[in-house]
């Protein structure tokens, strides 16, 4: 039995943040019904990445919305609204990621839904909270990365601001929403009461940086300084970073500098004995290391460093990773099929419960594909 079996989620979410939360809850066993507008559905269906179209929709839509059903409804149409209200009366969880005020105008905000289903757990994601002067701004990932200081952590000192190349803030907000909803579901299992869970991308972006922002707030307000080369963390000294070798790259996470010098046969590193020096002179040390590591192959360096318990690794691309036994044993991918027989490969839920992988064969839904079944099943 999956942990959330029997729970019904009505998901008004679009794009990534909200729908990534409902995907996680679906994989944990809940039944998720996406409510989509009849024309075009979730905008994510046409948000293409590198122009890839799969069975009519974007690849990211398929990744985010597998294991869900789709119910097409026009939230402004009185008949459709009636149907939605009846569906909401059966829902354990309702979630959305509209801008503040939209659900109030539609009449599906927390208080309205609570009057339909008193013990509902209602989750919402906003860009910048429902109070404060940014509340009406677009909650978009790159903008949130840029406003919260995140872009000064990645890349080298002379790179300018560098975004993390994924919608990281969306995913964090989705993860936090899932956590709040699960905590409330636990409470409901004890006390029977529902609850309201609110997350914003802004708060999630600051939380992501809780270590470095806390440092900033307690060190007199010094902004992070990335190293000139091989930066992997603005706050850590040498050797922390990725280095070019004769045939690829090598990641080095720690090790005293003279000891590394000895293992690698690099005498120039012998003088950097003090741990504080590894931070203060990290540009100098990284430059020496960078030159030296290019004199031999990644495999050669690994064969010297790993037996000495130095934390290091090869740097793989997906082709290399997918061929590696260390990846294959995880069974991290799964094949799913859509209602029309179209199949595709994707990843699975990263959590294991009672030794089982939480996989599901169910692919993403075609827009409105489940309307008829849902109308019949719930006698709407």
């Amino acid at each position, binding site marked *: 039995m999956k942990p959330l079996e029997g729970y019904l989620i009505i998901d008004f979410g679009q794009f990534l943040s909200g729908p990534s939360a409902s995907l996680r809850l679906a994989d944990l066993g809940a039944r998720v019904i996406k409510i989509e507008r009849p024309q075009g559905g979730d905008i994510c269906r046409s948000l293409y990445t590198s122009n890839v179209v799969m069975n009519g929709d974007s*690849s990211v839509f398929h990744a985010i919305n597998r294991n869900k059903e789709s119910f097409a409804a026009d939230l402004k149409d009185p008949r459709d609204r009636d149907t939605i209200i009846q569906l909401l009366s059966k829902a354990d969880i309702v979630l959305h990621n509209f801008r503040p005020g939209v659900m109030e105008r539609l009449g599906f905000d927390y208080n309205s839904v609570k009057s339909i289903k008193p013990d509902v757990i209602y989750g919402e994601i906003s860009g910048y909270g429902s109070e404060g002067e940014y509340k009406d701004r677009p909650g*978009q990932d*790159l903008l949130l990365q840029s406003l919260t200081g995140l872009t000064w952590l990645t890349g080298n000192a002379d790179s300018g601001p560098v975004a993390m190349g994924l919608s990281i803030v969306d995913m964090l907000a989705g993860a936090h929403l899932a956590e709040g909803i*699960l905590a409330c579901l636990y409470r409901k299992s004890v006390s029977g009461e529902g609850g309201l869970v609110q997350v914003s991308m802004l708060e999630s972006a600051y939380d992501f940086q809780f*270590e470095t922002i806390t440092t900033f707030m307690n060190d007199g307000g010094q902004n992070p300084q990335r190293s000139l080369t091989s930066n992997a963390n603005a706050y850590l000294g040498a050797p922390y970073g990725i280095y070019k070798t004769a045939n690829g790259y090598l*990641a080095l996470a720690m090790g005293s500098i003279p000891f590394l010098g000895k293992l690698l046969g690099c005498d120039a590193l012998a003088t950097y004995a003090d741990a504080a020096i590894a931070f203060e002179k990290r540009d100098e040390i990284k430059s020496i290391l960078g030159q030296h590591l290019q004199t031999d192959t990644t495999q050669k360096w690994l064969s010297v460093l790993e037996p000495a318990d130095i934390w290091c690794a090869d740097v793989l691309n997906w082709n290399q990773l*997918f061929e590696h036994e*260390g990846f294959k044993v995880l069974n991290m*991918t799964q094949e799913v099929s859509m209602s029309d027989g179209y199949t595709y490969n994707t990843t699975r839920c990263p959590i294991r419960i009672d030794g089982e992988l939480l996989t599901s064969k169910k692919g993403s839904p075609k827009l409105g594909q489940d309307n008829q079944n849902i109308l019949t099943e719930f006698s709407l």
Partner: protein
Amino acid sequence: MSRPLEGLLVLEFCQFLAGPSAGLKLADMGARVIKIERPVKGEAGRQLAIKNIFIDGDSLLFHTINRNKESYAADLKNQDDLEAVKKLIAKADVITHNFRPGVMEKIGLDYESVKVINSRIIYATVTGYGNVGPWANKPGQDLLVQSLSGLTYLSGTADQGPVPFGLSVSDIMCGNHLTQGILAALIKRARTNTSVLVEVSLLESTLDLQFEVITTYLNDGKKLPQRSNVRGSGHAYLSAPYGIYETADGHLALAMGDLNKIGSAIGCDISQLYTDSISSFDKRDDILKSLSDTFKKKRTGDWLEILIPRDIWCADVLDYTGATELPVFEQLGIRQSVQVSDSVEIETTRSPIRIDSEKLFSSKPAPKVGAHNSTLNQEFNIEI
């Protein structure tokens, strides 16, 4: 207000970031979290500092990750201490650890043994790469996991080679997944009344983080990500104008948007480059370069005044000074104070989750090693 996890008892054997960040999330949502630490030195994270900042003997980092918790010092190799810990386990709802495979078996606190002590335990583990396979005993460290997972080919520009995310993103995502798994297990237990095992690993979490782009890769003939060569480009898979641009006095971030509208708003003619929707990706580098030249001509504030009223998605690019001075930082109440001692207070951020319209503040500091041994011994009738 009752926090949703009130009444839950969590024993945290975890060290460093991934596991303890989950403990922090659970604590802020109302659980009572007790760190089980070796006597005197405590968990290794106490000595792991950035910028060499220590507060009251422990690193600021440790204080940040472990506020709102208690500490019980025990030497798990000492029989008396182990018995005491077993008494705590008998009363606990959840235990978490991130020891390498085999360590808890040797101590006698592996899942099978703990189930005998407490048949309703949620037993949650964090590993680097899972329990089997050639990487099972490799150090589960954030940068190494990023490097093995393909993540380093998504940021920066193509000519930079691999560029890691400049934060412990694998640890943090894994901590979130651990939190989710534990909470789902508690819901399962509410129905079955029996123990549940939860397992997560840094590598699986880092692959999940890439689920959108890996799905694209798997269904696009295994084409590897192609980052742009233009400085500031924001995402290997997204088309122009997505990225960060230099302006006359700083930078400007521009998300996805209608290129014709943006071109005409800023006075940049891209009609030769942007001929159809496909070209915004295929001609990405040329379009980015063309926009870059224009954005250098005015200051960020001037561009924002032009773009925001036209509903073009853009933002200033701030450092921590700017980010913590943003009015919304105060308006949303993101900052909170933690009282370390009578004379020492540190500022940190609060939980990002609000429950029943309440922000989850907590002023309770990280504990000293073993700070709660005597109260816990008394409370749980542990005789030493």
